Every structure is written in structure tokens, then in C-alpha cells.
């Protein structure tokens, strides 16, 4: 972070769904952005710049969509910045927006991320037969499943942990009206008995394919103070970090990537956090397959290596537990890929603003937003707080 303090004063998201056939891509991003502006009690003219992110363009088959979306986002004649970092893009997009404010370049920045999976084949988009590269035969789930198996082997976690995470996040989603999946009848048995898509990953332990968008308005300290003075608590950005590492490096730890560990250490350091498990009140972690919750808990230093699954087993990560994770329902309940990272960041902001509604963690003061992407080689994280840094 630079010298200028950064505040999140507006958060907006669309209703996420398998097919949002009622709006175009432009309509979808506009819907999220308008809600963020309304939340911030600002108008389009108040925005100095727009920072937008999404997953690869080939998902929708629209190249450089930010160009045509400029109109729908009120960005005509204003600086507009596009960010690309695969599935972590929603997080790194918010960080670019934050940096533009922190550096004093802009005072009010609108940041937006989206995906319209209903017009794409995202599940197989990673499985194109790229010439001269080792073949991928099993899509995104098939890429991550062997690493989940490695985690289970290393940690000795029992089979039901993945089921518990899926059950928890789908139940959390019932408290979030914007979530894509609302499954009030879900049970341990229904998750357990769902088909093994990519053993050890069951159907009900995978994220859905969603259409959706998320937006935030970030301002400088004066903007945050003004929001607070009018009774609309801002979320203060306490720390940000991005890290990446080579995907195909010999000896790379794909269960707990070094880039993730270093990104977490950096964001805690910047936020002045020395004991993350004790100090963080709510975490929104990018968990597209249920087993990634215990894996990331360990990677993020929120527990000792090998203990992530115990936190799940003991209910520590459910709403009401000591370290609530993905109270919004998380990626397991809503996955517009490009927006999924920003939703994590935005939900963290909602928690410390006390604005998370039926999935609010009582009295949350400090929250973590986390996103990862690609073959676990891109990481983006921020810590937001109710109190000014």
C-alpha cells in the first residue's frame, strides 16, 4: 500500500445463476456496478477510473470485452484498466484498483469482475489440445483431483471432510440471496451419494458454473471518512498482496504452493497481523472443490500443516465457529469464474462493514479475502478492517 488510505464504500453483485438469460454481458456488469454505486451513494460522474477483470476471453468468445463494456460502465472518456490473472483475477483486479487509490492517482475507482459461463465451455477450456504440451484428459477437476489425493495422503484426512465442507458452504449460501445454488434439502448423505466425477471429487463437492458479476467502489481516506460520517461504515483496506510462481517447475508443491504461503505472509505483515487464526474474524477463501478448504487453511497459515481437515471436522470453519470460512456460500455455491475472486474480497468487506445480512459474523473486525487461479500458480489476497489502519 502507498501513503493514501483506501476504503471500500460500495459493494454490489448480481443475482448469480446458471443462465442469466435476461441480460447481456453489458447488462450484467452494469447491474453489479449500479448496485455498488447505489451502496456508495455515488453517481457515475463521481468515478475517476474503472478497473475490470475476467477470466480468459475465450470463455465467452468476446475478445477484449472491456472495450465494448466501457459504455455500460460509464467509462467512456475515463481511464479503464483490464487485469488478467486467470481465476484469481477478481482479487488482483480489486488490488489494482486499490493501488490506484493508494498511489494517489485516482480518488474514486469502480472495480468490476464478471463471467458469463452459460455461453462458454469453461470446464474444458483448460483442456484444449495445445500442441507440444502434455495432454490434459480430464478438465479442471481432473487437473486438481490428483493434488487433492496427495493432500489426503499427506494429512491422513478421513474421506468425509470433503463432504462436510460442501454441506457447510451450501448451507451458508441459504443466508445469501445472491448465491447461485440454494439447496435447502442438501444432506450429508446426498453429498456422499452424489456421483464421483473425478475421484476423489464428488459432483456435490464441485463448484457450479455461474453467470454473474461483482463490483466495488474504492475511495481515498476522505471518501471513507465521508461514508462513515453519513452512517455507512466503510471497509478499510489493511493489506494487499499478489504472488505467482511457475506452473511447471520441478519440485513445486502443488498441495501448498510457495507463492500462496508467501502471499499470505506478505498480506498479514502489511496488515500488522501476527496471529492470523486468532485475529481474523471471517475468511472468504477461493474453494472450487471442497477439499481446497483444508488445503488453503494450511497454505494460508490459519492452522498448522496437516491440521486443516481437523478444523473442518470440529466445525471451526462454520458460521458461529472460531474461524468462519465462506459464510457467503463461497465458490462452491457461486462460480462466475472471473468474478469469484472479487466476490471473496467483496464478501470480506461486507463482513467488516456489518452488512452481510443473514450470513454476518457477529462483530467481525478483520476479514481476509483470498483468490487463486490457473494451476494454483496465481494468488491474490487482501485484509480489510472495520477500523482505519
Amino acid at each position: 500500500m502507498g501513503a493514501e488510505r483506501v476504503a471500500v464504500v460500495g459493494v454490489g453483485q448480481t443475482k448469480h445463476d446458471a443462465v442469466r438469460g435476461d441480460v447481456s454481458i453489458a447488462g450484467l456488469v452494469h447491474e453489479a456496478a449500479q448496485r455498488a454505486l447505489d451502496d456508495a451513494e455515488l453517481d457515475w460522474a463521481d468515478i475517476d477510473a474503472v478497473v475490470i477483470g475476467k477470466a480468459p476471453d475465450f470463455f465467452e468468445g468476446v475478445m477484449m470485452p472491456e472495450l465494448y463494456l466501457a459504455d455500460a460502465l460509464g467509462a467512456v472518456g475515463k481511464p479503464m484498466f483490464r487485469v488478467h490473472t486467470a481465476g484469481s483475477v477478481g482479487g488482483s483486479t480489486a488490488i489494482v484498483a486499490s493501488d490506484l487509490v493508494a498511489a494517489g492517482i485516482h480518488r474514486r475507482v469502480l472495480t468490476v469482475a464478471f463471467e458469463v459461463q452459460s455461453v462458454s465451455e469453461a470446464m474444458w477450456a483448460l483442456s484444449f489440445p495445445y500442441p507440444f504440451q502434455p495432454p490434459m484428459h480430464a478438465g479442471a477437476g481432473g487437473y486438481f483431483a490428483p493434488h487433492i489425493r496427495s493432500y489426503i495422503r499427506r494429512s491422513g484426512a478421513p474421506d468425509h471432510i470433503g463432504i462436510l465442507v460442501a454441506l457447510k458452504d451450501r448451507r451458508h449460501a441459504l443466508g445469501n440471496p445472491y448465491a447461485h445454488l440454494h439447496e435447502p434439502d442438501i444432506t450429508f448423505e446426498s453429498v456422499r451419494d452424489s456421483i464421483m466425477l473425478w475421484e476423489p471429487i464428488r459432483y456435490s463437492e464441485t463448484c457450479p458454473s455461474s453467470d454473474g458479476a461483482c463490483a466495488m467502489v474504492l475511495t481515498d481516506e476522505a471518501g471513507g471518512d465521508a461514508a462513515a460520517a453519513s452512517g455507512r461504515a466503510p471497509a478499510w483496506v489493511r493489506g494487499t498482496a499478489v504472488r505467482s510462481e511457475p506452473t511447471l517447475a520441478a519440485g513445486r508443491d502443488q498441495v501448498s504452493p510457495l507463492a500462496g504461503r508467501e502471499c499470505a505472509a506478505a498480506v498479514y505483515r502489511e496488515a500488522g497481523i501476527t496471529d492470523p487464526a486468532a485475529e481474523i474474524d471471517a475468511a472468504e477463501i477461493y474453494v472450487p472443490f471442497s477439499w481446497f478448504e483444508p488445503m488453503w487453511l494450511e497454505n494460508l497459515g490459519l492452522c498448522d500443516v496437516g491440521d486443516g481437515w481437523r478444523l473442518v471436522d470440529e466445525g471451526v470453519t462454520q458460521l458461529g465457529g472460531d474461524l468462519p470460512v465462506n459464510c457467503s456460500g463461497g465458490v462452491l455455491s457461486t462460480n462466475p469464474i472471473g468474478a469469484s475472486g472479487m466476490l471473496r474480497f467483496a464478501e470480506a468487506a461486507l463482513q467488516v462493514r456489518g452488512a452481510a445480512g443473514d450470513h454476518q459474523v457477529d462483530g467481525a473486525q478483520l476479514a481476509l479475502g483470498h483468490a487463486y487461479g490457473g494451476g494454483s500458480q496465481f494468488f491474490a489476497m487482501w485484509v480489510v478492517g472495520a477500523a482505519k489502519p
Partner: protein
Amino acid sequence: MTELSLPARFEGVEMIQRVRIPARLAYEFTAGVATSRFLRQVVRKRLVGERCPVCTKVYVPPRGACPTCGVATAEQVELGHTGTITSYCIVNVAFYGQAMDLPYVSALVLLDGSDLPIMHLIGEVPYDEVHMGMRVEAVWEDGDEMEPTLEAIRYFRPTGEPDADPATYGEHV
């Protein structure tokens, strides 16, 4: 402006909201010097990796540089056709555009003498007998179907040897 109305023959016809149009992008793709060296050997059923001069890790297929050390790889290392399964998944979902019988096994195979597993199919063994540490060997396409890609290996199959010592592949699990 004239009044517009739907011609009578379209009345009652279900409105189309979406059409499916497969997108295709054609690229000229250049393999690069190191990968070209590798692919020219693949069509001769030889697997030749390259060793990093700094960390000594062997990459197959080589891409010309060690991503960890950031230096060019040049030393050729011919590998055998055997390896060890470090991890795997059993796939029960049909792969877009491919006709493989379900379920099938996609595995990370650490070729003997190399330091980075490759992802490939496992064949000639029931899916539920595949496990970490299983020793496997490459089954090649027939000579006249050989293409300069890793698909020249049809799949890997068990060698029948005892499982590998976990110490030999543990850092890849």
C-alpha cells in the same frame, strides 16, 4: 416511421434466445528449439529430456529453460519408458470431444530420471487397482500413426514390478 408487426407465419413460434456456435481459432504454433529437439525424438519412440545446469533437475518435455533457475537447459538426457504414478484421479465425466470409456484414470507419471511428472492416461488395468507408487511403462502408437506430440504415447500400463519405494517419489506427492 411505419408500424412494424410480426409476419403471421411467425406467430406462435417459440422465440430463440440462444444458439450454439462452436468457436475456432487457428494458430501457427512454433514449438521452439528445445521442444523441437524433444519432438523429433518422440516420433522415433525416444524420450529425451534436458537437465538444468544449476539445480540439475531434468525436464521432460523440455521447454528450453529451467523455470526455477531462469537459465537455459542444453544437456540432453535420454530417459527410459518407465515411471512411477505419483498421484491420479478416476474420471467419470465424459471428456469433451473424446470417446473414452468411463471410468478412466488420468495420472501424474514421474518418468524415471526426470523431476517433473507428466499427466497421462493409464490403461490395461482396472481403474480401482491404480495406486500411488505403481510402476508403469509407455505404450506407443503404431509407427505409421506417430505424430510429434506426447499423444504418440497412447497411455501408460503397469509393468508388474513391485511398487516404487516412497522415498524415490515422495517429494512429488
